[in-house]
């Protein structure tokens, strides 16, 4: 494939100069021309040239001002600018460099010199772009982990937008069991490949520490976050100190069996904890210094309880320190407010919402710093109590089994600890399970005896589900006529009763011809 020639913008108000430059460069580059400062800025924003040759002496907006403006805008700030000047005095050159120029060419210019300087700076830019590319590959491959699957009762969403200067944001997830996992988020100070590599090194040390500690403890007795971070610190402190940098980090554990969040925070951005009950956000901050500071006291761990529907938001300073065109910061408060208002939407939508809000605020999709964000949402629906409340019953298709079905439902409901149901509610549930069982026996199995019905009951934090499985005829709820209440009909009330006795009824049938009737009762 033929490589597209780099685009060079020539900014000059003098047609003779423009002609000279065009003739010098036209064989090797695509060229854009702007005859004044305003046009130059407009062109640069629209076409993002690879390099700009900028005349200093222009009416209205001079070259210094054009350069200053280009360098102030995130979109155009990395375009190399070479000044063209008739003035060779030191003062003018200095002022040009101060405005952000990389180099200068003095008039009258020599074609060979113009060609050489343009070529050199384009090569340098290409090398920088390549470095950014490598750094972003390092970040994607080594710094950002994938969230665990199959953790009961949570949803995780994550977002990264690597800045043009990679600065070593990282995060990862460590799953210990179906009910317990850790999240680590961190940010290495410094830019570019060194920061990215240090971030990768920290993560690799962290994995080693986890591995070593888990050999020393048994599976039911995981190393505490504080212990993990202390060991990590011991391993990396010398190296980090040598590099004269530091890393902020938050290491957090979600214990879904006990609803406990424990974390060690080392100077990282304050984690947002949205409390579903109170509809409020609190900000979780630790007391430890970043890694790389000499350790003065042991790392301290904090613990917070959470509940179904709660949400945790981890993020990097790339979010809170993104700027708008007036130079104002996005800030922690705006993020917290946004989370608070939108905490109840799906995590994936929420994280997209956060992204869109930052983009709207900064009017840009590229940022000075990496933007990373991890959301951990505690499900409202899932079952994850310490002793999952589950029970099973198998009956044969005989109406004499009805009392067993009711006793099963009654005892199960009475055993739901957190939200005891009153007698009336349990009575309604007994009614519903009776009606469902009778329908299965009479209609699905057409009153044949000796067929099986399996009943599974399960309680989660906020609802009970009772499922009935049978292998009888398919049931179409829509085929059932509306009940008649004038005393002329003795039957046809079953579905009406079920619909009123529980909060939701779902019918389904799988490929193998197994029917499922699912009753949901909200707690």
């Amino acid at each position: 494939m033929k490589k597209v020639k780099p685009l060079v913008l020539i900014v000059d108000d003098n047609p003779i100069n423009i002609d000279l430059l065009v003739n010098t460069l036209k064989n090797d580059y695509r060229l854009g021309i702007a005859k004044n400062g305003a046009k130059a800025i407009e062109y640069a924003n629209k076409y993002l040239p690879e390099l700009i040759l900028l005349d200093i002496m222009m009416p209205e907006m001079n070259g210094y001002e054009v350069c200053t403006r280009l360098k102030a805008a995130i979109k155009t700030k990395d375009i190399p600018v070479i000044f063209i000047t008739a003035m060779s005095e030191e003062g003018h050159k200095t002022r040009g460099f101060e405005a952000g120029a990389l180099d200068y060419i003095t008039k009258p210019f020599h074609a060979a010199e113009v060609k050489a300087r343009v070529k050199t700076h384009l090569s340098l830019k290409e090398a920088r772009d390549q470095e950014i590319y490598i750094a972003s590959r390092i970040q994607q491959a080594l710094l950002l982990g994938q969230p665990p699957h199959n953790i009961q009762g949570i949803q995780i969403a994550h977002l990264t937008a690597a800045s043009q200067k990679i600065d070593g944001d990282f995060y990862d997830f460590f799953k210990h069991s179906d009910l317990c996992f850790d999240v680590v988020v961190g940010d290495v100070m410094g830019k570019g490949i060194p920061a990215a590599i240090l971030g990768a090194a920290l993560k690799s040390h962290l994995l080693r520490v986890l591995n070593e500690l888990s050999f020393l403890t048994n599976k039911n007795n995981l190393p505490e976050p504080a212990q993990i971070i202390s060991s990590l610190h011991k391993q990396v402190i010398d190296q980090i100190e040598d590099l004269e940098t530091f890393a902020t980090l938050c290491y957090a554990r979600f214990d879904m069996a006990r609803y406990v969040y424990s974390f060690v925070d080392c100077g990282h951005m304050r984690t947002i904890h949205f409390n579903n009950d109170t509809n409020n956000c609190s900000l979780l901050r630790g007391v430890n210094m970043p890694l790389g500071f000499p350790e003065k006291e042991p790392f301290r761990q904090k613990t917070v309880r959470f509940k179904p529907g709660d949400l945790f938001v981890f993020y990097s300073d790339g979010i809170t320190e993104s700027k708008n065109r007036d130079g104002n910061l996005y800030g922690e408060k705006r993020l917290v407010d946004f989370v608070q208002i939108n905490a109840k939407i799906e995590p994936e939508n929420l994280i997209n919402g956060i992204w869109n809000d930052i983009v709207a605020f900064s009017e840009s999709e590229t940022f000075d710093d990496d933007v990373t964000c991890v959301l951990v949402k505690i499900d409202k629906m899932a079952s994850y109590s310490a002793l999952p409340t589950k029970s099973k019953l198998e009956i044969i298709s005989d109406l004499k089994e009805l009392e067993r079905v009711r006793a099963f439902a009654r005892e199960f409901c009475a055993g739901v600890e957190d939200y005891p149901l009153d007698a009336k509610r349990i009575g309604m549930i007994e009614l519903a399970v009776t009606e469902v069982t009778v329908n299965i026996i009479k209609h699905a199995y057409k009153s044949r005896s000796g067929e099986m019905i399996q009943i599974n009951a399960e309680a989660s934090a906020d609802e009970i589900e009772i499922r009935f499985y049978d292998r009888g005829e398919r049931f179409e709820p829509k085929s059932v006529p509306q009940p008649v209440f004038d005393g002329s009909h003795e039957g046809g009330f079953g579905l009406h009763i079920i619909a009123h006795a529980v909060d939701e009824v779902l019918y389904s049938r799988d490929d193998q011809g197994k029917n499922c009737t699912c009753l949901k009762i909200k707690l």
Partner: protein
Amino acid sequence: MELSTEEIGDITVVAVLTEVLDAGNADEFKTGFASILNESNKMVFEMSRVRFVDSSGCGTLLFCQKQLSKLGGNLKLCGVQESVRSLFELVRMDRIIDIFDSKEETIKSFQ
């Protein structure tokens, strides 16, 4: 099905002794009812022992009411437990069959 009956004037008071009236024993109940049907066309079911009724149970009571009204009589209920009563209301049965708190009130209502 055990139905203990007591005659008060021309009214038959039936003590329903089962705790449950559901699809499992509805036919049995109807048979038991048929065997006492000839005695009277005015009946009171005393329901205080009945803890649980399902839609088949409701159907059974509506069946009994229909049979009695064919004979020019009527079925009334008394002593209905609260959970059973809320089911009757759910299927609007309280509009078809009169329900009273006590046996005495029910008997009085026939006069």
